């Protein structure tokens, strides 16, 4: 396969792995916050 096709495919694959990792991180983060937090999941904007 031409090298000019391989480079974007490699970058795409790396991007895919990182994106997947970020998605897993988000799920883990939300789970951890809700597990260790007593507050319900709603907006809590305070004006400063």
């Amino acid at each position: 396969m031409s090298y000019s096709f391989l480079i974007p495919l490699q970058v795409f694959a790396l991007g895919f792995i990182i994106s997947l990792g970020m998605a897993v991180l988000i799920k883990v983060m939300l789970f951890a916050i809700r597990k260790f937090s007593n507050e319900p999941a709603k907006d809590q904007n305070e004006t400063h």
Partner: protein
Amino acid sequence: MNILDIFQGISTLFVQEPKIAIFRIVLVVLGIFLVYLGTKGTLEPLIMIPMGFGMSAVNAGVLFLTSSTTGTIFIDPMLSDTDALMNILQIDFLQPIYTFMFSNGLIACIVFMGIGVITDIGFLLRYPFTSMLIAMFAELGTVLTFPIATAMGLNYGEAAAVSLIGGADGPMVLYARAAAVKTSKFHNISSREKLIFAVIANTLLCFLFPVAAPLFLSFFIGIAVRESGLDKYAKLIEHGFLYTGTFFLGLMLGVLCEASTILNPKVLTLLVLGMLSLLISGIGGILGGYIVYFANKKNFNPVIGIAGVSCVPTTAKVAQKEVHKAKSP
């Protein structure tokens, strides 16, 4: 004395090469047309009105810089010699904006701060896998344009730079029937969760890609300001930074569209490849939206797919407008 020498914008038309002169007129008319499309709302007015004005002004306002050369006193983007640059900074009125904000990425960071302030990342946090999948499909233009660009003679660095345009902004129009699909509601993500995500993601991404750290910081600090409830900072960034940055971005883009620059074969190639990259990315985004639509048993609006193309929310805005039009009685 030739009377036309007083009106140099016109007399330069007769001195320049015919194709540049004709293209100057074309770009003047195109600039006026972009202003018209912006005021009508067909294209994003925040960008198109300053861009259209800039484009028509820079192509009309050509003068004799010396007895034998023509140019403008708007900007010289190709200048790199320090002494010449210091000289031009005192003459060309947009040169300081270009040199100190455009070419070093400051204007992009300012716009990203504003985007962070107006962005609700709730959908991303609620559906991270769907969001990432759509974003990956919306990068299709980047992947497919790279080999096309290298085949057209660009080196790997140039091809990568122009292919990345596929992940950037671009106004797209969708088929209205996609707008008629029902969407499922999603639960709110709290501001605290969004703030914690902003802190973690910012730090992690800066560790992984320090070359893009200024953009990460800008975007996530905007999100942090929004989710912390810092209204005064949010207003400063949204109304001050974002709109100032957007205005000058549009104006600079218009002023950079000078006929002699665009007719440079290399620039023309980059323009065509950039448009191709955006087009393929748009198609990729729509494909990604439809894949999620069928995977979720039609419980997902595929219109969201094209919003994955944008690093600034114009395609999302266009998609939202088309959906609203399709759903209005």
